[in-house]
């Protein structure tokens, strides 16, 4: 088949030939096998296009073929239509998570949090006793107290006798501090073991401290009647 007879075929098919021309063409059809074969193929076109059912089927198959060709060129995740639903769901989850997280971060002002934490340290109210005891740095040396024994369970009565040994030549001052952080007794001068506290002291828990000018060597507790 070729297009060289097409104009003739079209004129004949469209009924545009004059009677003489038509008769001549029909004669040629019966005598010229090539023309005849071409015309038969020309007619197949009408048969092919007129078969609507098969055309409809072919249109669908072509669409499926094109869909599959497109899918073959895509990553696996996109191959099937329903994956778009999963993709949409995933995007929604990511966006929601981002929004919620942003809102939570915005709600908690971290600068304020840090500042208030630092302030909390600054404004922590130590008791007067704590503050008094913190005045001197605690030092670990060989200090052995023989009397009185550390205890808040046994009542002590004055006068209090302090006996100790210490591996230091620094002069030590003995102080007694009440629960309010008030120094109720001080040896004022360096104390030497044994040392008798003659001053009458108020009852209650008492802290005693041996210190130099800068360091506390020993801190203990007494419960005075």
């Amino acid at each position, binding site marked *: 088949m070729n297009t060289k007879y097409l104009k003739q075929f079209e004129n004949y098919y469209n009924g545009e030939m004059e009677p003489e021309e038509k008769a001549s063409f029909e004669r040629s059809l019966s005598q010229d096998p090539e023309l005849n074969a071409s015309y038969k193929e020309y007619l197949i076109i009408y048969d092919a296009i007129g078969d609507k059912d098969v055309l409809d089927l072919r249109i669908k198959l072509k669409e499926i073929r094109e869909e*599959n060709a497109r899918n073959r060129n895509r990553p696996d995740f996109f191959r099937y239509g329903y994956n778009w639903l999963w993709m949409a769901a995933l995007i929604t989850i990511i966006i929601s998570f981002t929004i919620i997280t942003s809102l939570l971060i915005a709600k908690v002002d971290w600068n304020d949090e840090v500042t208030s934490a630092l302030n909390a340290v600054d404004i922590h109210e130590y008791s007067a006793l704590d503050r008094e005891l913190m005045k001197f740095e605690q030092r670990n040396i060989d200090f052995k107290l023989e009397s009185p024994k550390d205890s808040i369970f046994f009542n002590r009565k004055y006068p209090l006798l302090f006996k100790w040994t210490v591996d230091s030549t620094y002069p030590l001052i003995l102080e007694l501090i009440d629960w309010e952080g008030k120094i109720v007794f001080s040896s004022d001068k360096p104390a030497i073991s044994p040392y008798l506290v003659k001053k009458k002291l108020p009852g209650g828990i008492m802290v005693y401290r041996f210190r130099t000018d800068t360091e506390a060597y020993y801190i203990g507790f007494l419960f005075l009647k």
Partner: protein
Amino acid sequence: MVHYTQYGIIEGMRRNDKDVLKYVYKQYFPMVRYFIIRNQGSEEDAEDIFQEAIVAVCQRVKKRNLALDCAFKTYFYSVIRHMWLQYLERNKIHYEFSDMDEFLMLEDHELYDDFQTKKAIFQRRFLDLTELCQKVLLMVVEGTSYEEIALTLGYKGKQYAIKRKYECMKSLINRVIHDPEYKRLSK
């Protein structure tokens, strides 16, 4: 994905149901591709043969009751096998078949003869035309007058509609005569 029974597939094919066609494609195309490529064909050959086999089976289903006493897969494989055998013989390609499944022996007349093969080529190439050309040719085949075609498609007049139809026919024939399968058939 929905699973179709053998009956569902046959009924779907009778109605040109796209979902069923998709299902058949998904279920059986891998088998067809494997078979064709294993027997001297290409990916494109597999697509073409698969499509023609579907058309042949659908036509068979519509014309006669297709009472299968075997699995649809076996019948479909037999159709594919037969069509590919015809293709290889027509193109004088030496082959030693390597079968991958049991199959039925089908008669040539059960499937395509040369006329049907040419018709299939025309139909495939028709679908490659522009939408407007497809529309013009379809209206002509449906018996619509050229005056009406001109009116519907906004042409100047009957003569222009005739000219457009001629151009579309020429475009279609040119596509057909360059079709490799048509060339082989015309030798």
